[in-house]
């Protein structure tokens, strides 16, 4: 009997097990804890003897270098890619701007009893956190612009976005929160979501991390309702839209200085890296641009990111900027 079962298990690993035999094996495994244990032990040894990939392909030293760099970096700081004076400037200027504009418009609105427009821009290579008059929080990514009226209208809280922003909306069902971007209108009550709609890109992507939103656009025949972990992608070139299921928490990580790519094309990876560091990166080889990679960058510098990508993809890169800023223009091509 035992011998018999061992042969079945062997066939399972060898993928030559028939469906009746499989049935028998499942029954046998369910019979006792001891049988289960035997199976687990055999699978263990089979796994150890038949690795999914060659052990020589695992480079412990490279991995060690990566780990050491990460642990030496110590605590995960905030916006690391800004130099200290930019950080200081951001800390001082943004609240100052908000307060002075608020005071200014407040005075004006009292005098004129009218709504005024507020506009906030995140300079390229930086991102900015804003608190809106209703207590909602918005993070504006590099080169993006958000505008809204102060105060919000009584009936709705309306904002206009160009670029990318993450919204953490204070709940208020009576006054819907609306984001308008490039013809799309997103209605929320209390939710967290990311909107990626740079006019220079072809895709408009809305990713819902919490709650529920309603999407309207002239291109859509009906309103589309979205739940948690759903992602709405509209391709402005083809005018086709799709809704996917994703891990939404990954899409707002940029606001913590973390770049996460899951099976993303090199083209898109470089696009995002370029935006984050305010440089131009062009991928010369179209086939290369379409290759997909996974990567996570936490507080790495531009040089470190390029180096890491060079180690894992068949690429080389050249700095082609001018003397003053040699890294402003980067060309990526296939490694020979």
């Amino acid at each position, binding site marked *: 009997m035992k011998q018999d079962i*061992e042969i079945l298990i*062997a066939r*399972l*690993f*060898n993928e030559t097990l028939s469906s009746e035999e499989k049935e028998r*094996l*499942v029954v046998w*495994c369910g019979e006792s*804890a001891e049988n*289960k*244990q035997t*199976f*687990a*032990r*055999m*699978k*263990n*040894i*089979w*796994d*150890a*003897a038949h*690795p*999914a*990939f060659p*052990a020589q*392909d*695992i480079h*412990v030293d490279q*991995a*060690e270098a*990566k*780990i*050491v760099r*990460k*642990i030496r970096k110590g605590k995960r700081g905030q916006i690391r890619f800004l130099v200290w004076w930019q950080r200081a400037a951001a800390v001082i200027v943004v609240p100052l701007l908000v307060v002075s504009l608020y005071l200014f418009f407040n005075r004006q609105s009292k005098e004129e009893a009218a709504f005024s427009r507020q506009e906030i821009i995140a300079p390229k290579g930086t991102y900015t956190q804003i608190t809106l008059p209703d207590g909602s929080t918005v993070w504006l990514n590099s080169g993006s612009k958000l505008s809204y009226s102060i105060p919000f209208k009584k009936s709705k809280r309306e904002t206009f976005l160009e670029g990318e922003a993450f919204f953490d909306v204070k709940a208020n069902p009576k006054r819907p929160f609306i984001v308008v971007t490039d013809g799309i209108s997103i209605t929320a009550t209390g939710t967290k979501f990311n909107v990626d709609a740079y006019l220079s890109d072809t895709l408009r992507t809305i990713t819902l991390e919490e709650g529920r939103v309603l999407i309207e656009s002239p291109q859509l025949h009906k309103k589309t309702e979205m739940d948690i972990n759903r992602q709405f992608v509209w391709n402005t070139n083809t005018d086709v839209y799709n809704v996917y*299921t994703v*891990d939404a928490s990954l899409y707002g990580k940029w606001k913590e200085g973390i770049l996460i790519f899951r099976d993303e094309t090199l083209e898109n990876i470089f696009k995002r890296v370029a935006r984050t560091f305010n440089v131009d990166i062009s991928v010369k080889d179209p086939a290369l641009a379409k290759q997909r990679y*996974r990567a*996570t960058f936490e507080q790495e510098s531009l040089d470190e990111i390029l180096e890491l990508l060079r180690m*894992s993809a068949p690429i080389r890169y050249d700095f082609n900027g001018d003397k003053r800023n040699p890294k402003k223009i980067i060309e990526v091509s296939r490694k020979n």
Partner: protein
Amino acid sequence: MINRENSGNVSNQISFLLMYDEQQILDQLKEGDEDIFLFLFHKYYKDLVLFAGTILSDRRDICEDIVQNVFLDLWSRRCSISIKTSLKGFFLQSVRNGCLDELRHSKVVRAHADYVAFLGNDMDSLTEQYILHSDLEFRLKEGLNAMPEEYRQAFELNRIHGLKYREIAANLQVSERTIEERIGKALKFLRHYLRDFFLWILFLLYL
């Protein structure tokens, strides 16, 4: 340092020794000793990546990501962490959790589902005695070293270097029949030597 486990069946004595030494290792970790941390990294990294590979199969990059995160997490939580099992058990469990998370995210149906069907999710009982790739390698090497030189040579040329019987025979200037015999003897020797924990695997691999 840690006593190397050579077989799946760790006797009580050895496991006591192991726990004792591991306590010292953990104490040093808590004090922020990077050398000890890197020692653990070197000792377990490859095996853990291969272990992750048993769940996520072909995605080596993800497997490496997961194992690296387990180590980073150990380092950043080293002061507060309490490890009730052995370090090996802790690592295996953490890597398995990381892999299962990944499976949940990627929603791709994989061969792993088969094993879950057989075992349910409780494989915990095995972690302490889990045989790592390097354990197997070590044991095999030991076995090879213990056998007569002639057998070992023929066996290695065939199984490790991938030479055909005819080529080996020409190389060693003996008949093909002799090579056949030597490899057969080598297998028999190994089967006996390794019988305590993988008699049957050789039966699968070589018969």
